[in-house]
C-alpha cells in the first residue's frame, strides 16, 4: 500500500484540535483507570471509555482492557497509551461517580469541566475502618445463622469476621504480596474458632469457620469471572478465575494448617 492510500485510511472525517483531543484522551484513560482500580468489569470499562470518546466526536477508538492493563488508542490522531494497574479493590462509590460523569458527558458536559470532575473523584469518601470491620462482623454473624449455626457460636463468628477484615486490610497496606493476607486471616480465624470450641462453649467448629471467612471468600469474583467469559472476554475471565481459586486456596490452606496442627 502506498503512503497516500494509508493517509486516506487514517484521516478523520472532521479534524479536531490537537489540544482538545489530548484532553479527551486524558479523561477517557483516567476514567478507565479509576474503574479498573475500583473493581468494575472489563466489558463495562471498554464500553464507558468508547462512549466518552464518541460523545466528543472522536471515532475509530480502540480500547483493550484486561484485569491489569488498559490500552487506549485514538487511531485517527495517532495517540496511544498503556496503563498498568497495580492495586485493585472493590470501591463501588467510584464506579457510581464515573458512571455519573459518563452520563453528564452524554448530555454535553464541556471537556474542561469533565477534567475537573476526574481530578476530584479520587477524593471520594471511604467508610471509616471501624465501620468496615463491624460490617465484616455483622456479615459473619448473619451467615452463621443462614448456615443453621447455633446462638452460642454467634460471638466467635462475629469476632472472626472482624478479625479477618482487620488482618486483610492492615496487611494489604504494608505488603504487595497477594494471597498472603487471606492466608494469615483464615489462619487466625481457624485458630480462635478451634480454641473457642475446644476450651469454650462453642458447638460446631466447621460452621463457625465457614461463616467467619465469608467476608474474605471470593464468591463475587468467581461469578464475575464467568460473566466476563459469557460476554466474550476470555482473558479477563480466566485471570479472574485464577485469582479467585488462588484466594480460595490461600484461605483453605490457612484453615487446613490449623486442623493439621491441632
Amino acid at each position, binding site marked *: 500500500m502506498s503512503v497516500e492510500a494509508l493517509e486516506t485510511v487514517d484521516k478523520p472525517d472532521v479534524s479536531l484540535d490537537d489540544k482538545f483531543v489530548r484532553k479527551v484522551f486524558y479523561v477517557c484513560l483516567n476514567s478507565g483507570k479509576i474503574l479498573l482500580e475500583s473493581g468494575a468489569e472489563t466489558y463495562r470499562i471498554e464500553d464507558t471509555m468508547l462512549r466518552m470518546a464518541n460523545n466528543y466526536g472522536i471515532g475509530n477508538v480502540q480500547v483493550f482492557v484486561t484485569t491489569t492493563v488498559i490500552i487506549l488508542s485514538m487511531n485517527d490522531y495517532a495517540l496511544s497509551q498503556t496503563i498498568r494497574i497495580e492495586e485493585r479493590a472493590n470501591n463501588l462509590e467510584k464506579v457510581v461517580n464515573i458512571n455519573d460523569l459518563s452520563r453528564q458527558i452524554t448530555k454535553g458536559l464541556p471537556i474542561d469541566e469533565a477534567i475537573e470532575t476526574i481530578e476530584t473523584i479520587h477524593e471520594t469518601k471511604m467508610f471509616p475502618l471501624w465501620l468496615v470491620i463491624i460490617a465484616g462482623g455483622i456479615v459473619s454473624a448473619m451467615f452463621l445463622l443462614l448456615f443453621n449455626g447455633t446462638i452460642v457460636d454467634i460471638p466467635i463468628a462475629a469476632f472472626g469476621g472482624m478479625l479477618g477484615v482487620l488482618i486483610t486490610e492492615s496487611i494489604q497496606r504494608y505488603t504487595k504480596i497477594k494471597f498472603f493476607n487471606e492466608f494469615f486471616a483464615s489462619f487466625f480465624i481457624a485458630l480462635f474458632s478451634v480454641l473457642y470450641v475446644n476450651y469454650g462453649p462453642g458447638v460446631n467448629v466447621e460452621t463457625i469457620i465457614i461463616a467467619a471467612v465469608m467476608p474474605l471468600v471470593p*464468591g*463475587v469474583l468467581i461469578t464475575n469471572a464467568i460473566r466476563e467469559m459469557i460476554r466474550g472476554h476470555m482473558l479477563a475471565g480466566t485471570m479472574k478465575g485464577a485469582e479467585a481459586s488462588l484466594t480460595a486456596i490461600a484461605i483453605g490452606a490457612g484453615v487446613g494448617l490449623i486442623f493439621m496442627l491441632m
Partner: protein
Amino acid sequence: MTYFFQLILSFFASAGFGVLFNAPRRTIVAGGISGALGWIVYYIATEIGAEAPIASFLGAIVLTAVSILSSRKLRAPVIIFITCGIIPLVPGGTAYNAMRSVVMTQYDIALAYGFQVALVSMAIAMGIISTEMIDSLMQTLKREVKNLWKKEA
C-alpha cells in the same frame, strides 16, 4: 416466621457487604433488599426440592430484576445493586470448602464441591445476564414502537 427471619438475615449480609465494598450510602439499603429477595426465592426453591443451580438461577433472575428497578429509581448503575445482592447466593463458602478439602488431601470431596461451585456460579451468571438481556430488549422494543408511532403521526 422462618421466611421473615431469612429475609432479615440475608438483608443484613448483603448490606454489610455493601459497606465492605464501599457502596454509596444511598444505595446500601436497596442492595440489601435485592439480596434478601434473591435469597428468599432461592430458599423457597430449595425447600420445594429444586437443585442448588436451578434455585440460584431463579434467585439471580429475581435479584437482577430488583436491581434494575432500583437502579432506575436511584440513578446508579445496576452493577452496584447486583454486586451487593448476589452475596447470599454466591458459592464462596463452597469454594472455600473445595479448597480446604484439597489442602486436607480429600480429593474426591474437593472435586464434588468444585463442580458445585462451577455449576452454581454459572447459573448465577446466566440468570443475571439473561435478565439484563431481556431488559435491554424491552427497552429497544419500546423505543422502536415509539419511533414508529412518531413516523405515522
